[in-house]
């Protein structure tokens, strides 16, 4: 972490009425890092994510993106250069797959032909057959396909940072696993910085370089899975117990080296 961080939170707080959603959080995401934010519902993880592209404004503290204080950046321009994957897709139901994917380049004023080429490229990148998907409406897609389109849309304007809000939460386990792996390799291939919210510790351990644990608006712990396992927080240890139990159980049930 020698270079300046891609995203940095310094003593950031945000309240909604009397509820402290984010409470004095300081946290850095390094350039090229894949960070998962884990926590229960109401822990403030979504608020923390949205503060980064100014979908939510902080009450106090400073947030910088690629070294710039976000308060000095036009929020619309900021959002156009940061990819955002929404829970269950957030696709516009009246626009085709191609129009959904091409929306941010279109807002940036790119030429229609350039956008069309980019859409094909992205469909390939997220492994969707372009001929059969370009013109479809979101309602004609499966949940997994929708999320792939959501990822393609987030990547369309070639952002260096991608924010993901429980992107795979609503998918069946097989699809979820495949999409997670696919995204992880895109992250590496494109040199992205990714912040992903999840309530699933197993997913966080498998995909992320580093994990941040939130509870009641506070950042309880941060580090690699190994670092977290030596945490002094009971809550963090409790979160880690579930994947560990699953591993032990699976090891008993599935002989090692057996053909799957």
């Amino acid at each position: 972490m020698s270079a300046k961080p891609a995203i940095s939170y310094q003593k950031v707080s945000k309240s909604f009425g009397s509820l402290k959603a984010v409470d004095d959080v300081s946290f850095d995401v390094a350039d090229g890092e894949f960070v998962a934010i884990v926590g229960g519902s109401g822990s403030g993880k979504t608020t923390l994510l949205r503060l980064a592209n100014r979908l939510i404004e902080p009450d106090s503290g400073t947030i910088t993106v690629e070294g710039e204080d976000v308060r000095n950046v036009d929020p619309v321009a900021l959002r156009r250069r940061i990819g955002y994957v929404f829970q269950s897709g957030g696709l516009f139901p009246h626009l085709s797959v191609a129009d959904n994917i091409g929306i941010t380049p279109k807002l940036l004023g790119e030429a229609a032909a350039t956008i069309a080429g980019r859409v094909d490229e992205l469909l390939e990148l997220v492994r969707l057959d372009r001929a059969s998907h370009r013109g479809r409406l979101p309602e004609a897609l499966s949940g997994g396909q929708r999320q792939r389109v959501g990822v393609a849309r987030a990547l369309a304007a070639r952002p260096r940072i991608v924010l993901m809000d429980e992107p795979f939460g609503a998918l069946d386990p097989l699809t979820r696993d495949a999409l997670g792996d696919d995204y992880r390799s895109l992250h590496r291939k494109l040199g992205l910085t990714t912040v992903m919210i999840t309530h699933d510790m197993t997913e966080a351990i498998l995909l992320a370089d580093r994990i941040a644990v939130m509870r009641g608006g506070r950042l309880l712990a941060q580090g690699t899975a190994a670092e977290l396992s030596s945490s002094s927080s009971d809550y963090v240890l409790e979160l880690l117990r579930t994947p560990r139990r699953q591993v032990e159980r699976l090891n008993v049930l599935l002989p090692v080296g057996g053909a799957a």
Partner: protein
Amino acid sequence: MSLFADPRWAEALSHLPDYLGNHVRVSLAALALGLAVSLPLAILTRNRPAPRSILLAFASIVQTVPGLALLALFYPLLLLAASVTLAWFGISFSAFGFLPAMLALALYSMLPVLRNGITGLNGIDPALIEAAKGVGMTARQSLVIVELPLALPVMMAGIRTAAVWVIGTATLSTPIGQTSLGNYIFAGLQTQNWVFVLFGCAASALLALAVDQLLGLIENGLRRRNRVRSGLGALGIAALVAATLVPTMGRSSSGYVVGAKTFAEQYVLSALMRDRLQAAGLSATARSGLGSSVIFQALKAGDIDLYVDYSGTLWANQLHRTDIKPRAELVAELKTALARDNITLLGELGFENAYALVMPRRRAEALGIRTVADLAAHAATLSIAGDYEFFSRPEWAALQKAYALQFRAQRQMQPDFMYAAVASGEVDVIAGYTSDGLIAKYELAALDDPKHAIPPYDAILLLAPKRAGDDQLHAALKPMLGKIDIATMREANLRASGNDANSSPDAVAKWLWEKIKP
């Protein structure tokens, strides 16, 4: 087959380009204005609960005002506005016809557009608005690219409702001087021409259906992003507008406009005057079905050029006089008073159409009643019916005072039905009109007024200020003056009350001219 062989269908059809054209123009202008005001308001207030509820409450209140009253209210309102702009800026505009009708109808169209607009915009999944923001849309882009397209079906449903309401309500704009399909209905009701009533209702219903379907086509096309469909719908609306504009565009609007109030005698007389002007080579159109208070103001403002009024009506309503003078004296004094407003009282037609208390001849004889004074003794056991305005007119107050009249009950009735009601004994006495042909038809007797409580009601021909020195016009109308006596007018009115081809105002006007021509 015989039903459609009736020449009144052909007559109705001949008015269609004019009535339909005006109807479409005022409806679409009102709808366009209503949309131009309501849609931005819906967009502006969708996230502001306080102004939103005030706006919706206002639109709901407007909706509870009966259409006819709303239209009628706009006339004096605009008259006031016109006098203010004239005094302050030297600009005058016509408060008659198109403008008040369009404004009232536009106001009427607001509720469904506002309510559906706000409901449609508020019904969008907040996650999608968040997503629009997240992909980098400005508030305006979010509105245009995401919110409006998603709210479109609900908004269009409101627009379609508004269109149907406006087209239906536009039939009520006839009494404030806007020609519409309502002309068929008002004229038909007054002259018992059911062909006209039916024709007017059917035409406005078909128009409403057609516009609704075309708007539906546009909506469907927009929703499916199908340019062919929305294009066809828009083309249909454009074709409708063009088709209704073309036939009336060619017609000169510089001709004379003959006004008529809302009853059969007025329809006949306006048709007669129009025929006379045309015979003299002047272009003339009749503007019928005008409200009694609207018509005098319309003449004064020059929106119509001539019409027939009654001396007693102007004496009481315009000069606010309560004293009563003999016939000739009253007309002379009225003429001087009107001249101050530059209105020309060209002369009397010859008959009087006064209010008179009327009852069946036999019953009157049996009770020994010949005059209102005789009636007073029996009034406590009798009921009386009058038209919608009679009991609030000064004549009624004067009658009651002069003869100490106290009836057992009083009712208001459509004038056409009063005579049948008194003939059948439904009521005992009616406040009828002396020139009405039904008095003879139903063997009724008009009671004398020995104390002259009711002022004289000479039919008088009035000309607008701008026609004061128009010799051609004066010459064309002169042959009518003093020629129509009470018996002739009664017979003409009786003919007009019939329910066959010979009873149309045009046909009766021709008969009347044959009778009085020199």
